[in-house]
């Protein structure tokens, strides 16, 4: 990566205020998921227009869009809350997750829109109290920042190519 490109996408390329709002969004997002609060997860998305995708790096590299979760409109993100909280309730193990994030890149896309890349590691703990890695990867986000930050689109791209067991909660 050239010095020019790197400095344009460094975290410091955007204002401290914008960085703080994005950091709050990321923290709220993982705090919601780690407490199985699906409505809190939903609140991280822009309610006018948003999407959420979760797929493997294998598919991403091949230009294939499908994967684990494909929520291409805000309505389907709302529906995912209903699936987990209501329809699936009682059939899955309510495993405990812990998300750990590290922002790596951020840049302005004009107006109040920003793109951001953030590495993640997600651990999960099962009913027996055993903790393992669920997934490692990178979020590729578009974020609207105007007093409060919301996800316009989030793509969770998993380096982990074979996930353990099954996935109930989004990453």
């Amino acid at each position, binding site marked *: 990566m050239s010095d020019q490109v790197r400095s344009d996408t460094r975290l410091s390329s955007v204002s401290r205020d914008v960085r703080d709002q994005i950091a709050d969004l990321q923290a709220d997002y993982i705090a919601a998921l780690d407490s199985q609060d699906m409505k809190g997860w939903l609140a991280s998305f822009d309610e006018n227009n948003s999407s959420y995708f979760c797929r493997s790096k294998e598919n991403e590299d091949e230009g294939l869009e499908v994967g684990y979760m494909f929520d291409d409109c805000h309505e389907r993100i709302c529906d995912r809350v209903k699936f987990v909280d209501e329809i699936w309730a009682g059939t899955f193990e309510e495993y405990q997750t812990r998300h750990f994030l590290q922002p790596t890149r951020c840049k302005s896309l004009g107006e109040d829109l920003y793109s951001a890349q953030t590495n993640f590691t997600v651990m999960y703990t099962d009913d027996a109290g055993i903790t393992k890695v669920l997934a490692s990867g990178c979020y590729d986000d578009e974020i609207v920042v105007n007093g409060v930050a919301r996800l316009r689109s989030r793509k969770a791209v998993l380096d982990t190519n*074979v996930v353990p067991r099954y996935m109930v909660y989004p990453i």
Partner: protein
Amino acid sequence: MDAKTDPSAISHLPDLAWPPAGVSDSVPFGVFTDQATYDLEQERVFRPTWNYLALEAEIPNAGDYKSTFLGDTPVVVTRDTEGEIHAWVNRCAHRGAMVCRENQGNNADGTYTCVYHQWAFDAKGDLIGVPFRRGLGGKGGYPKDFDMKEHGLQKVRVENYHGLIFGTFNEDLVDVEGFLGGEGDVSYHMKRILNRPLKVLGHTRQFVDSNWKIYAENTKDPYHASLLHLFHMTFGLYRSSQVGGVSLGDEWHSVLFASAGEEDESTKKENKENASRTYQEGYTLADMSLLAGRKEYDDGVTLVILSIMPSLVVQQIQNTLAVRQILPKGVDQFELVWTYFGYDDDDAEMDAIREKQVNLIGPAGLISMEDGEACELVQNAIIRDRDARSCIQMSGHDFKDEPHLVTEGPVRSFWNRYRLLMDF
């Protein structure tokens, strides 16, 4: 199949309490936990039968290859420079290193070189180059009688069945059509789904911590589908009261199919009264387009689960088409590889329908997530009591084609054939 198909040839292992020969309405749990059984399955159930390896659409061009497994043996499927498809064991003929290390790719020159000492093989698996064959400066080199032809990779017999590539170690096995039981519902439904060239939409992969046979049972069990998968019930995608049935192919493959359409009110009521964890009527989604889909086949069948033993499930659920490859990884783990596909001639709208409906299936699928969970619940609970047995008696003790979905017949048929192959 080989000689082990004669029922009188069954001998009981003294340490596992099987029901009498010919009756597989229960199985001893030890069959899911024994290492010796697992090892024997590789020899008797996987290697001598047709195993799914790849979609032809995954290796469309000359030089393409894909690494996968036949049972737990690593194999590579290749397309040579002439366009022919081959497969070989991914283990160097020199000292055993893995030759191909990528999941998939293209070797335009058709050469596969082992990194360890750079033996080179062609797409057929034949040895074509050995460094220092004649030594260096008159020193070293291979003996005069060293014959390159004797040091190729171990070859796997392949067949391309309507765009699905199968492999076997058994040179005497009938072709795939014959393996599926010849003309019948199983081969009919295979060809119905594989009716024209396919297009790959993506993959997902999951490790399930259970014996592979617990999943084999699951894919042959229409009984669980409306009870475990509440999404099915909630949105009427599948109910036990639907018009549908099960058919067997060569007695251990099965197809489970169901048509959309209203059940009559009394069956619907009876259905609901039988389930304690039940669904709510009149549920709606914010985006009902997930379930809108498009009618693709004239027969009105909206759900087909083909369970092709030992390694494959081919499915149509609404507009989702997928193959699921079952790869055993040990006595208590298997990998499930989902490959989603559509047809080459799908229009953009159809692509979009299939993409969003992929939410229904896979490791996070609205009607398949619970199968991984159910398999692990079994594996975790059966430890120690090897001779305790399950109960597989829904719809009787035998197995046959049935015009309804309230049955475990296909599960019994699987066990019957499994015992013949294993000599249990």
